[in-house]
């Protein structure tokens, strides 16, 4: 399997286009580990933000004014501030304030490391937008349908789970997909707190080998492929959820 590295080495020698990531094993390892971390971040934040969105939308329509205020406050804070600022705040700000443990030598060990803080920050950020997206779906469910569920004896929670949410999900799925695609791309912000994801790995490679253009091309192609896969999965999901006769 030396054909690929040799071809790229040859490309460098003949044209000067230096794709070190394909022929240098150290760079290749860093790049692949970066990809794995990006996938880890993407999967965990997507799942967490969907849960946060669903729970938040449920509380938003509930009877308790306190809970409604809480959810709205959360949405305002996380929608109105830039995600990079949120990431810095969690890692550098909250990281110092929260209690920490100590190693055997007495060195401070923070409660959450940078990958965990990145997941928390990104999940909350995308979750806030998801609350509004789920709300749009929930409000699209006709009031009459909800009344019918109530008259059949469903509790509020059960009606939400079995009647409202399935219909709301199908309505808001395109908007939700948009947000999740944005979330996948927003995971690149984690590089600012040294999370070893794809952008961080590629940045290290190009600052050492001075092949900025080539690595930028690799980076753009990588994200184009990742987002393309996500979009394909989302479309499959949309098709699987389609109710015959309910939409176009």
């Amino acid at each position, binding site marked *: 399997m030396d054909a690929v590295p040799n071809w790229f080495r040859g490309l460098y020698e003949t044209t000067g286009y230096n794709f070190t990531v394909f022929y240098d094993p150290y760079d290749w390892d860093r790049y692949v580990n970066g990809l794995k971390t990006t996938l880890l971040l993407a999967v965990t934040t997507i799942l967490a933000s969907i849960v946060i969105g669903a729970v938040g939308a449920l509380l938003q329509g509930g009877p308790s004014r306190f809970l409604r205020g809480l959810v709205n406050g959360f949405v305002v804070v996380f929608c109105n501030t830039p995600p990079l600022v949120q990431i810095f705040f969690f890692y550098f700000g909250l990281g*110092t304030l929260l209690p920490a443990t100590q190693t055997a*030598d*007495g060195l*401070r060990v923070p409660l959450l*490391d940078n990958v965990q803080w990145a997941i928390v920050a990104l999940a909350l950020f995308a979750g806030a937008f998801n609350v509004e997206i789920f709300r749009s779906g929930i409000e699209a469910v006709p009031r009459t349908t909800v009344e019918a569920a109530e008259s059949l004896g469903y509790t509020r929670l059960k009606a939400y789970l079995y009647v409202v949410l399935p219909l709301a999900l199908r309505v808001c799925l395109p908007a939700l997909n948009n947000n999740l695609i944005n979330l996948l791309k927003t995971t690149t912000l984690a590089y600012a707190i*040294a999370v070893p994801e794809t952008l961080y790995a590629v940045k*290290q490679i190009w600052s050492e080998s001075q092949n900025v253009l080539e690595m930028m091309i690799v980076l753009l192609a990588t994200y184009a492929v990742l987002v393309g896969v996500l979009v394909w999965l989302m479309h499959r999901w949309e098709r699987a959820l389609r109710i015959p006769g309910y939409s176009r």
Partner: protein
Amino acid sequence: MRKPTSTFLGAGLLAAATVLSASLATAADGLEAIKQRGTLIVGVKADYRPFGFRDPSGAIIGLEPDLAADVAKRLGVKLELVPVVSSNRIEFLQQGKVDLLIATLSDKPERRRVVQAIDPQYYSDFVNVMLPKKAGITDWAQLKGKPLCATSGAWYNKDVARTYGAEIVAFDGSEKPLFALKQGNCLGYVYDQSMLQGKLLDADWKADYGLPLKGILDAPWMMAVALGNGALQGLLETTTKEWMKSGFIVEEEKKWGIEPTEYSKAMHEKYKNATN
């Protein structure tokens, strides 16, 4: 009646010629101009403790201003220090705003093409790791598998990671790695030894942190004068050798609170017994 235009033209040309010859004189006849002027103008850093920084009264002090003072003394002229930064120091020298640069200037081939370097190089910076004293690290090999904060883009990050197996956690700039280090997100901060030595002079860091390891990957610093300045260059070369012979630089390092580097000690040894 004389035409006014030709008078102005003549006056203008004369003025231009005077100014041009004056500025050419500053750059080319360096040593003579300095002696005539009675002042040696040296470009130094004002924000790089302890090599060049400001004291509470605003005066620039440090290891490099002291070296500049010594050169001025040898020439028998007064000293004027001009603060410079990395992005303008070479331009100041080329434009004749300073006669001499002693401003933490790393020796690079591109720089040698535009300024006259003074050999032997007067100092050398190393790469080192600022570690907490509690960690008890005494050898580079103990860093294997440990996370080290670093500044993104530094030329030595990859070397340190590959040679010693440390895990580099890189941030942009040199503020964020220090925050992360304080919080315990990494074991130490790998950076230029001279900068770390300066940081350790602060009360904040002095108590709990230190540089227990020996510096690696040395990168020499050079003094510089404008190209074509043969007389001044010759004088500075002799001066540098005399500094190394007498151990002046080693004394200065101790004076400003930094551990004398291998380079300074080695150069002192080499020139101590030399006859030229």
